[in-house]
């Protein structure tokens, strides 16, 4: 196989990792909404935790995106 082709295949495989981050981020916002609708008065105080959890989870998807970019442009 050509090395160039392997690079593109690798980038495609790396992009699959973003599916996990998508599930995680969806779970975080879904859980926040269901909790917030049960107790709306407590929702505002948890906004910082929401954003923090979102950022930590999203970073993992960004990592796999980064691997894809590295394979496409840097290797």
């Amino acid at each position: 196989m050509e090395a160039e082709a392997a690079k593109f295949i690798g980038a495609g495989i790396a992009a699959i990792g973003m599916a996990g981050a998508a599930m995680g981020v969806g779970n975080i916002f879904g859980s926040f909404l269901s909790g917030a609708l049960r107790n709306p008065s407590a929702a505002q105080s948890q906004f910082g935790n929401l954003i923090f959890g979102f950022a930590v989870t999203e970073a993992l998807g960004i990592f796999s995106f980064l691997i894809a970019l590295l394979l496409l442009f840097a290797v």
Partner: protein
Amino acid sequence: MADPNKVDPIHQFAITDVFSTGDGGFAFTNSALFMVLTVGLIIIYMLGSTASRSVVPSRAQVVSELLYDFVANMVRGAAGSEGMKFFPFVFSLFMFVLVANMFGMVPFFFTVTSHIIITFALAMLVFVVVIGYGIYRNGFKFFKLFVPAGVPAYVLPIVVPIEIVSFISRPISHSVRLFANVLAGHITVKVFAGFIMSLGSLGVLGFLGASLPLLMTIAITALEFLVAALQAYVFAVLTAMYINDAIHPSH
């Protein structure tokens, strides 16, 4: 770069010399230029808006007071009132990252935070401050950070190495999160802008088709403004949480 018609989404991150003193000598790059602009804007704005303080604030003063309150509440919430000692540090980091990210959203401007060396330097600064202050304040007790309280003794051989590795990998995740978010966002905008060009060159039908990626580019640009502010906030929150670890190491 050989073909000028080919869309190159990476080109926007190229570092060029604004002026230099020759080969291998001192070089003032566009990255340095925009760092100077970022810091200059922050200093001018914050000093200018609070120079003539009044009880009924001007609009500029309201904005700087909002920023101050926002970061102060965040630091107090994450690190306690003792963590307010580090408020100037966290506030400087927050303002630098926020303004640098916002500068990056202006077309043809260089994004300082899209280079890992910049964000890694910031993250290492936080890491060194946390270790230094933690040992200065707590002495040997700082290493309790790696031994969570209430964990059975037979689990400790597994837990302690995990805690140490997660502590050491902090500057990496701290810096890569900011850098990769900014980089990924800017590349995405450029890739969709490239779709507009390649579809638009196909004639009348292409013009109709090109309106779809145009809408997408506008939507992603709006999202990027959100991400720019959000990542500055996240960077500051994580800094405050790490400082909290330095002040109260025993979980």
